[in-house]
């Protein structure tokens, strides 16, 4: 069976995302039979937009490889791919080895050990937000909460948090069309194509990680970087290049994604005050509300796989080497999985949301940590009866990869 080619339904132009996810275009692709061939550069990719198909691709890593080409839309040259390879861009057995090095820190049991620390940070940020009478929700709450948590886990001193948030912001730019910093920023001399997100900020983050590594070698502590340093000393478990890319992923993914979830969550509750009222009235809804915030936000819009062999999906024939792009943003609005998917509903219990991916080995490492951060923040807002009211237009990131919110003004209203 064939596939549909539609050229008036581009979903990759980063500028589109300034107005939000182009949901009507995704809905059209979900309704079209088979997979949609989406032109991109000189070539194109199969757009996987339905929930069931995203699930299928996610759970068949032998067929849909993460290690070939790249996991972003464009291919990398072989040397760039090697230089930038992280646990996101690997298949088993390398992926299994890398993932196991850090997985222990992110299991539900070990994530729960951070609950007190997460709560302290959330309370401090909320108190400050209330005291100020509101302001930019991203700057004041959504960005600092996850970065402080991941930096604590890694062992990074809290006074460096602002610097790492700054680097992270430049990395987000690297997923779009524009870079506001010159190639030699932060003393970078590496060709940009060899750096994650093609950004000189990656060079700075690598350097930061390597400096921490030196410190921990001399003075081990009870933190994740020390754990990685020990693994590196253990022949064959972690190469120097793997270390710096892993550090990079942990910092970036540990703050950018949850920041996005907390921003869209705040927006959703501001726009749907009756949903927040439901949480205030019944705190047992926090868990389902957290899942709904994740579905609603879908912080990572897509991930790409590459077919390792000729295969077939949804009746469409896929050739070995074809790019296959899973649009989580679309899967999370698929009415085959979610009743009335465009309704934000904190009591929702129908589909399995794919904000952490569609399952399979690349399922988000930080899923339990993200859930903890979101649910603790919601709880502490509920305890204080804080209701958010939006005061300024949301400014979105021009990116087809992260569903970023750059700023949105909010004021807290204490309701009784």
């Amino acid at each position, binding site marked *: 069976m064939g596939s549909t080619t539609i050229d008036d339904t581009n979903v990759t132009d980063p500028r589109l995302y300034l107005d939000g996810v182009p949901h009507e275009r995704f809905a059209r692709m979900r309704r079209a039979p088979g997979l949609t061939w989406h032109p991109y550069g000189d070539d194109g990719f199969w757009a996987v937009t339905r929930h069931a198909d995203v699930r299928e691709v996610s759970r068949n890593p032998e067929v849909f490889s993460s290690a070939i080409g790249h996991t972003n839309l464009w291919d990398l040259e072989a040397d760039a791919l090697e230089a930038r390879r992280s646990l996101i861009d690997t298949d088993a057995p390398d992926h299994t080895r890398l993932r196991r090095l850090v*997985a*222990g820190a992110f*299991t539900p049991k070990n994530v729960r050990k951070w609950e007190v620390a997460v709560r302290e940070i959330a309370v401090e940020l909320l108190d400050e937000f209330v005291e100020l009478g509101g302001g930019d929700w991203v700057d004041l709450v959504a960005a600092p909460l996850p970065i402080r948590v991941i930096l604590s886990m890694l062992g990074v001193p809290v006074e460096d948090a602002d610097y790492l948030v700054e680097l992270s912001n430049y990395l987000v730019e690297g997923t779009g069309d524009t870079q506001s910093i010159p190639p030699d920023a932060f003393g970078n001399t590496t060709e940009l194509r060899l750096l994650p997100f093609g950004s000189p900020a990656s060079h700075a983050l690598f350097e930061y990680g390597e400096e921490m590594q030196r410190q921990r070698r001399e003075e081990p502590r009870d933190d994740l970087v020390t754990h990685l340093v020990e693994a590196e000393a253990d022949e064959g478990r972690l190469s120097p290049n793997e270390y710096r890319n892993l550090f990079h992923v942990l910092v970036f993914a540990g703050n950018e994604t949850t920041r996005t979830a907390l921003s869209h969550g705040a927006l959703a509750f501001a726009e749907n005050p009756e949903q927040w009222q439901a949480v205030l009235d019944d705190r047992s809804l926090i868990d389902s509300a957290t899942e709904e915030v994740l579905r609603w936000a879908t912080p990572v819009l897509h991930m790409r796989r590459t077919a390792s062999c000729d295969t077939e999906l949804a009746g469409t024939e896929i050739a070995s080497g074809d790019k296959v792009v899973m649009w989580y943003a679309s899967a999370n609005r698929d009415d085959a999985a979610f009743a009335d998917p465009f309704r934000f509903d904190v009591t929702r219990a129908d589909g399995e949301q794919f904000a952490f991916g569609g*399952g*399979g*080995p690349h*399922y988000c490492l930080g899923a339990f940590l993200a859930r903890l951060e979101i649910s603790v923040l919601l709880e502490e807002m509920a305890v204080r009866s804080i209701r958010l009211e939006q005061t300024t237009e949301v400014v979105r990131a021009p990116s087809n990869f992260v569903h970023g919110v750059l700023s949105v003004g909010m004021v807290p209203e204490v309701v009784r």
Partner: protein
Amino acid sequence: MTRRADVRVTVDSGSCIAGGQCEMLEPEVFVVDDIEGVASVIGAATLPRDRAEIVVDRCPGRAVRILVDATRTLDADEPTAGE
């Protein structure tokens, strides 16, 4: 076999990525070793079949298996017997 009947489960340590889903869903049966980053079963390792199937479905490494008998495991894709 009914869906409530107990089945034995096992973890294929070669494909486990320590995603922690098993430990979250059934903490009495599964435990993740933090250092090695691999899950294993504890005790009798039995679960009602319907709950075991949820763990199999949610396991990101497809490492959790249902033991059909002493020599064979049921694959994630294989239809469940007795339905």
